[in-house]
């Protein structure tokens, strides 16, 4: 039995179904990321777990006991909100101490707990300030401290990094990861940022329009996406998608964009089937070892250096493919460039159902 079990959870407002039967389970100490575009229902699911928005059907169990119908404060859950939700009229110390005060913990004990958690998050020098006097990153830390200080059995994070600038986001992300490793806390984390999901999660749930698209470890989600939505959502730049038909021999794809360039399939399929071949940019590129059998000379249309990598936009018939080269590569624009296709890492989707078939 898992620590968190969510079973056939539904929520609808009027005729509109926001959650259409969600099943999720998470072991103690796990870090679950709910990932999806805005409007996919991930925040609604989080609020249902928190008790802020009751579900219309289904069950949520924590440690074996159903919490549906239980008041938020009785669930022993702490939450970090997107806007941090710090109480503007209280100092940082009072903010952190508020949940303890509500729990009726005596002042001396409270002070000690606040000091401990403030040391963990390096905000000890800010305890007498008010939230308005803090920077975004400091507010984020205070919000985490307020959640941590209660030592709840479950932490919820609702897009906690989306109000921070890019540099700070990376810092706080690492901070959250460190906290998870140190405390062994169980965390459910909502984001629309696939990098956050990949870096933080032990388990990712990809959602779209109120339904789960795929559940798995970051590696599974990234390498073996269940369908074209997940494949496209994960990874930046996104996976290259080549629609086409399986050739007579069942082992090659005839791409629609370039019918005279058959590409080998990662697994044999029924001849004539309409499929979509997916291959990630990092699986197209230089091959210094010469171990990759498929090599093509493709004209370079655009070169995008990012510093650590160089992305190439290559012309294959009427399609453009993205390839990734090391940061020191200097490919000429306009001229053909030899790239190797690692087809063992490619995936194939059915063109109609959009599900992965190989």
């Amino acid at each position, binding site marked *: 039995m898992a620590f968190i079990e969510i079973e056939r959870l539904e929520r609808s407002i009027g005729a509109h179904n926001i959650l259409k039967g969600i099943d999720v389970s998470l072991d103690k100490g796990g870090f679950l990321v709910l990932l999806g575009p805005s409007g996919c229902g991930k925040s609604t699911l989080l*609020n249902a777990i*928190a*008790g*802020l928005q009751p579900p219309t059907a289904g069950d949520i169990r924590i440690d074996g006991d159903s919490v549906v119908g239980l*008041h*938020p*404060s009785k669930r022993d*859950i*702490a*939450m970090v*909100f*997107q*806007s941090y*939700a710090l*109480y*503007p*009229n209280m100092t940082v110390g009072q903010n952190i101490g*508020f*949940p303890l005060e*509500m*729990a009726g913990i005596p002042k001396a004990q409270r002070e000690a707990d606040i000091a401990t958690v403030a040391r963990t998050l390096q905000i000890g020098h800010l305890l007498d300030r008010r939230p308005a006097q803090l920077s975004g990153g400091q507010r984020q830390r205070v919000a985490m401290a*307020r959640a941590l200080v*209660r030592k709840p059995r479950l932490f919820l994070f609702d897009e906690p990094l989306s109000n921070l600038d890019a540099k700070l986001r990376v810092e706080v992300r690492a901070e959250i990861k460190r906290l998870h490793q140190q405390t062994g806390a169980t965390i459910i984390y909502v984001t629309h940022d696939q990098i956050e999901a990949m870096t933080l999660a032990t388990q990712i749930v990809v959602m779209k329009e109120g339904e789960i698209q795929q559940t798995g470890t970051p590696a599974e989600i990234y390498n073996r996406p269940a369908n074209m939505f997940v494949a496209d959502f994960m990874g930046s730049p996104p996976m290259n998608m080549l629609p086409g038909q399986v050739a007579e021999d069942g082992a090659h794809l005839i791409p629609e964009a370039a019918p005279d360039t058959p590409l080998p399939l990662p697994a044999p399929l029924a001849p004539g089937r309409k499929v979509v071949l997916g291959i990630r940019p990092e699986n197209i590129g230089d091959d210094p070892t010469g171990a990759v059998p498929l090599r093509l000379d493709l004209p370079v249309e655009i070169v995008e250096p990012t510093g650590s990598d160089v992305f190439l936009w290559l012309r294959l018939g009427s399609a453009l493919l993205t390839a990734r080269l090391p940061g020191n590569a200097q490919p000429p624009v306009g001229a053909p460039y030899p790239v190797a296709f690692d087809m063992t890492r490619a995936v194939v989707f059915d063109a109609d159902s959009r599900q992965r078939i190989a």
Partner: protein
Amino acid sequence: MSAREMAIATAAGPSRLNRVVIYGLLLIFAAMYLLPLFVMLTTSFKSLDEIRGGDILALPADPTIQPWLRAWGSACIGVTCDGIKGYFWNSIKMVVPAVLISTALGALNGYVLTKWRFRGHKLVFGLMLFACFIPFQSVLIPMARVLGQLGLSNTTAGLVLVHVVYGIGFTTLFFRNYYEAFPTELIHSAQMDGAGFFTIFRRILLPSSAPIIVVCVIYQFTNIWNDFLFGVSFASGESAPMTVALNNLVASSTGVKEYNVDMAAAVIAALPTLIVYVVAGRYFMRGLMAGAVKG
């Protein structure tokens, strides 16, 4: 003279003329508004003889505070000659609880209507808004009956009740619009931290409500203090509020008309609202702005 030079020359001319006209008009209107106050104040410091013989706009030749003392302590209202001080305290006893209760209830209503929404909350708010537009006159008779049945006729408590009931529509409107802009995430956060309905209200919402509380208090204080209709309808004789007493003082037709005492009494009657506005006025503007921009 080139076209450009002409344009510059004519630009400076009309702009100076505009200023003169604008400030001239403003001065005239300011004088129009200040003149009655000036007459009231000067008259209240004059003796009756001077008023009868002199120019209404002249400053008092021999200033005296006698009319103020008389108005406060010994002027005749109806059959008693104890001045307006008793009625002044009546008004205080009416206005303080009425303002506090209606503001508190408005804050609670605003809190519930924005953060604890229930089915039909829009209808309830709509009805409360509607209450703001009911003319006072149309509720006089039903209200008199209700007060009679509650045993509150001719009492200050009855007036407090009437003003609270009538004020709730406005105070609810103020607080609802203010709390509408208050982040709901804070309420959710406090809920998860274990705070209950009233704790959230008291610890999270109220400390951030100072501007709107001031707006509400000024608005309610001014309205209730200045009310005449409810006062004259539901409280007569000993329990009448200041406004009614002032009317009785000025309108009494026996003996010599003491203009100086009337004026002093009128200024005393206007003083509390003036003080409230001066003390809390800057918050008033700030509160109005806050609501306007955030909402």
